[in-house]
């Protein structure tokens, strides 16, 4: 007979050999976890004796009673493979189901077989799709060597490749494709022209005459020279409208709308991808950085195959556990802090945070003034000696690099005084570094480096932010970025495998996924600012580009709207009016408050249910013990079973037995003598 731990009692020893326990509905559901639903048909439950599937008999289905089978037969059939038994057992299930199925009406049989075939088709399709996934083999190799933490970086890279590809496809199909196919489909292109303006002629830096070979290379690498008059740059799209035989294509409008569209698409895709991680973070206990159960039960990466990596993973787990236990002790200490100490700590933190903000502001100001100074000097064309000139030209870059170098060191010193918990420290430092992202750690130049995930992630987020800003002025930039990330993947992979050892500081896959996407979202937000500013405020060029005829890029939209029929115009104007915006905002706020309240209510309910569960468990144990007591007593009283050992249950003694007048037996027939405890 099997022993169920729900009824494991600490004090009186295991409850063995009790058929009651097996028949309890909760135990049945424990074994099979089936959702019972009345399918309405009667199925013959074959009472086959299933031999033990495994030597570890507690888990075999050998002791399932007949009653349980009958219960089962009314349930919806789940796919066979979801049963936690061996292949041989599942085979027997299949034969049993086939037997049962033969008895069903033909319609049901048809339905079942179609369901099975559809499932198989879906599995094949999924297998095929996953086979197509980019870099599947490489990522698996990395996973085997370094675990799932670093894997998250590479799958992040893969995501960015896809994102940039889609953005490029968008740009291409709406902006470049019409231009390319216009001559072939007999389209008529009207060009933009601004008359009477001084700036309407741009000769560019196109080289004339005999051009040296190496200048072509510099042009190719720097994007100047002959590249200026290609599809690469905004200036090439000096098209006003393309008149196709059937319709007119407004290219400036398309250009503007595609820009807005790709920003929007990126936003939605990132949010959707991070939604699962966000939900998990909400559900998880906010107090702990990572719960202990997650670390212990899900802590081991079973896909690690490298001996070295195993050793390192073990030591990193040990380190992590020790840190968390330490952190808990610290938290206890913090809770025990006196009022005075707390005030002191908060004051220190406030001062240091102000200091940090001051440092960052100083950095920005110095970069700004250096840039202005450098530009002024270059415009004034003061030529001093060579070195000073060089310094003036590269002054902004020098200042930026210095700032990037100094600030992380400063922050790491400061954070020591702020006395945060270690986990919070990491996140806070990363946030501060985002403002001044950098590639620090000059000391780690030789020997095997660790693959520093935060810095690498910040690098690619920085690159992606630049890409988002730049795509408005260079429609082919996403394609370049896609190729760049493609190469970065292979370069990083090679350097990882050959140079790096697994990180001693562990990086959790789940929370890092979410965190990378959050940082990317910040990058997107930062990218939106210059783009919107340049669309709305900066006067568009008079000489090149699609917006020559307009004052700002944004003006295309109102002009196009004014050409629409009256009713649609009125509708669009109403949608963009203040009244609509305010009411939309109010409704969104209300919805948000409702959802927050709902979440709070759910949390409360969950807590109540947990307490109830604990209480029910105790009730059950208590009742079972009383039951066993009563059974034993009656068994002793009846002459047959004198051999039953008397078990003492010291904890649940006769204080309750007075209330226990009747013995309730679920399975056995009532004893000859009336029960009396």
């Amino acid at each position, binding site marked *: 007979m099997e022993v169920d*731990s729900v009824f494991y009692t600490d004090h009186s020893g295991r409850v063995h050999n009790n058929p009651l326990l097996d028949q309890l509905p909760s135990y049945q559901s424990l074994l099979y976890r089936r959702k019972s639903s009345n399918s309405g048909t009667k199925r013959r439950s074959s009472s086959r004796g299933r031999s033990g599937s495994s030597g570890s008999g507690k888990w075999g289905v050998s002791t399932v009673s007949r009653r349980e089978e009958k219960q089962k037969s009314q349930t919806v059939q789940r796919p066979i493979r979801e049963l936690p038994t061996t292949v041989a057992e599942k085979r027997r299930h299949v034969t049993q189901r086939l037997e049962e199925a033969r008895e069903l009406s033909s319609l049901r049989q048809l339905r079942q077989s179609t369901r099975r075939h559809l499932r198989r088709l879906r599995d094949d399709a999924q297998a095929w799709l996953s086979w197509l996934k980019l870099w599947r083999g490489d990522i698996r190799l990395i996973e085997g060597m370094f675990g*799932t933490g670093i894997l998250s970086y590479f799958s992040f890279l893969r995501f960015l490749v896809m994102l940039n590809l889609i953005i490029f496809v968008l740009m291409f199909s709406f902006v470049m494709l019409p231009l390319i196919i216009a001559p072939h489909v007999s389209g008529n292109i009207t060009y933009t022209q601004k008359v009477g303006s001084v700036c309407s002629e741009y000769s560019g830096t196109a080289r004339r005459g005999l051009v040296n070979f190496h200048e072509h290379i510099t042009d190719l690498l720097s994007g100047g020279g002959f590249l200026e008059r290609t599809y690469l740059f905004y200036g090439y799209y000096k098209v006003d409208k393309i008149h196709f035989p059937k319709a007119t294509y407004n290219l400036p409008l398309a250009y503007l709308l595609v820009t807005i569209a790709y920003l929007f698409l990126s936003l939605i895709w990132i949010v959707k991808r991070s939604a699962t991680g966000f939900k998990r973070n909400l559900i998880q206990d906010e107090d702990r950085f990572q719960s202990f159960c997650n670390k212990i039960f899900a802590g081991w990466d079973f896909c690690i195959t490298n001996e070295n990596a195993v050793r390192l993973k073990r030591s990193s787990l040990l380190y992590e556990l020790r840190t968390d236990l330490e952190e808990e002790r610290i938290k206890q200490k913090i809770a025990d802090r006196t009022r005075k100490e707390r005030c002191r700590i908060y004051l220190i933190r406030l001062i240091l945070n102000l200091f940090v903000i001051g440092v960052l502001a100083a950095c920005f100001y110095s970069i700004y003034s250096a840039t202005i100074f450098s530009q002024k000097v270059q415009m004034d064309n003061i030529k001093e000696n060579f070195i000073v000139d060089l310094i003036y030209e590269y002054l902004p870059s020098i200042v930026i690099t210095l700032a990037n170098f100094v600030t992380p060191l400063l922050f790491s010193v400061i954070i020591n005084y702020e006395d945060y918990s270690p986990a919070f420290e990491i996140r806070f430092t990363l946030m501060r570094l985002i403002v001044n992202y950098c590639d620090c750690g000059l000391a780690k130049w030789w020997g095997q480096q660790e693959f520093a995930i935060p810095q690498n992630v910040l690098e690619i987020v920085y690159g992606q932010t630049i890409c988002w800003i730049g795509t408005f002025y260079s429609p082919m930039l996403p394609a370049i970025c896609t190729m760049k990330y493609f190469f970065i993947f292979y370069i990083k992979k090679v350097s990882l495998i050959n140079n790096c050892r697994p990180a001693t500081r562990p990086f959790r896959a789940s929370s890092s996924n979410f965190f990378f996407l959050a940082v990317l979202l910040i990058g997107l937000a930062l990218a939106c600012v210059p783009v919107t500013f340049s669309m709305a405020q900066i006067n568009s060029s008079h000489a090149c580009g699609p917006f020559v005829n307009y004052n700002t890029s944004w003006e295309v939209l109102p002009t196009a709207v004014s050409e629409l029929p009256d009713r649609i115009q009125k509708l669009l104007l109403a949608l963009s009016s203040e009244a609509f915006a305010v009411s939309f905002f109010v409704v969104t706020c209300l919805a948000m408050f409702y959802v927050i309240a709902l979440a709070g209510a759910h949390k409360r309910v969950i807590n109540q249910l947990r307490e109830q569960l604990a209480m029910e468990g105790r009730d059950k144990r208590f009742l079972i013990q009383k039951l066993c007591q009563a059974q034993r007593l009656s068994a002793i009283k009846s002459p047959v079973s004198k051999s039953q050992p008397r078990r003492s249950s010291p904890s649940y003694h006769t204080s309750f037995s007075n209330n226990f007048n009747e013995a309730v037996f679920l399975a056995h027939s009532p004893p000859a003598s009336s029960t009396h405890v």
Partner: protein
Amino acid sequence: MGTTASQLGKDLLSEYQELTFLTKQEILLAHKRFTELLTKDEKDLPNTRVPAERILTLPELKSNPFRKRICHVFSTSEQKDGSLTFEDFLDLLSAFSDSATLEIKSHYAFRIFDFDDDGTLDCGDLEKLVNCLTGETDETRLTTEEMRQLINNILEESDIDKDGTVNLSEFQHVISRSPDFVSSFKIVL
């Protein structure tokens, strides 16, 4: 029914596809790797049982601290020596595959972590589990005090009915809230 010689029949293949979470390519690869473990005479016998020592030479299992428990859990031999037939091997890969359900994974994880096979995770099981994770030598173990604190924390988080042990449903409940489990409980050939 079992594997015969070195070729896997078509019906057997589709049957295995239905009974496990593995795709056709994965089953064929598993068959290939399994037959590599067999000696020459064993290759002709159907339903050969490979002893645990040979299974543990597979690179995917060689460095896994839970390798012995894995073989023990998936073995169907009466002697409980951890030997696996091909179907047991498929069971193993199916439970550890990408497409296995959380329920299956947590069920088998529970059995693997249950070192004394009594159906619950009590303090002894948890202690052995932690030692498996951190290392077997003295320098790599937690001190008794730390271990006690850790086990208390685990039980506090997962033991709902407060009986001092973690049973299957409590374990599955904790796992369902654990975000890293599905991605880490994976073995792919």
